């Protein structure tokens, strides 16, 4: 699912892929706000990695939705 022209931020729980990264699958934990360059939306996402989970803050344009919430 393309993330161009989204009117509302993605919801917490949405399953996404972080493009151009080794992280295959992540879950939106929180919409942080328009803190990216030129007001880009920033999300805190939870990546399930062993041995522990990792939180990463990424821009919306880096995300591809795998399963909407």
């Amino acid at each position, binding site marked *: 699912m393309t993330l161009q022209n989204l009117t509302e931020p993605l919801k917490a729980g949405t399953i996404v892929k*972080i493009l*151009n*990264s*080794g*992280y295959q699958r992540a879950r939106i934990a929180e919409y*942080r*706000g*328009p*803190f*990216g*360059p030129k*007001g*880009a939306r*920033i999300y*805190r996402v939870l*990546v399930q990695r062993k041995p522990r989970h*990792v*939180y*990463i*803050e*990424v*821009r919306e344009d*880096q995300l591809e939705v795998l399963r909407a919430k």
Partner: protein
Amino acid sequence: MPSVAFARWQNDRTPRLNEVDSHCAVVLASVPPNPTFLHENLRGFVLHLSAYFQGFCRDLYTEWSQIWIAAIPLGFQATAQAQFSAQLALEKGNPTYENINRDFSRFGFVLNLHAASPAGAQLVTDLGHLNEWRNKAAHQGTKPLGGGVPATLTLPIVQGWKASCDAVATLLDGIMRGELRRIMGVAPW
């Protein structure tokens, strides 16, 4: 033009804190006086103030790091974002000068509030006292507070800490804008 984080501090967080401030003033002026209720409200004010200031610091950190990250090749960005997000002191820790410095030092310069303003030393002291009281209020602390920390909360004291948080927020916004302009050659926001 301020950062998004600072605009949010001014236009959202500060008005909310002003509401709590006004409520405490009403309780202070109530007849007959209710010192126990006033003290509980002041403790709540301290918790709100520390939490909102922590939120501002986290927002500014996020904004700064995302501008920094956008300037590096796309294939490195997620890795850099993971590094900037890892082990943040401000994620769970109080917004103490030490925690703010620890996180913001990842950007490659020393944050020196003492040198940034003639009032810097007082601002750092106020931040320390606010967070001492924040812990006492949040954890129902019974131990005496450290030297120099007010033993009793009053509305003017908490209002003074609020003014200091506002001054530190203004300083941080300016310092970070200046550092980004120095590094990138253009104003970041």
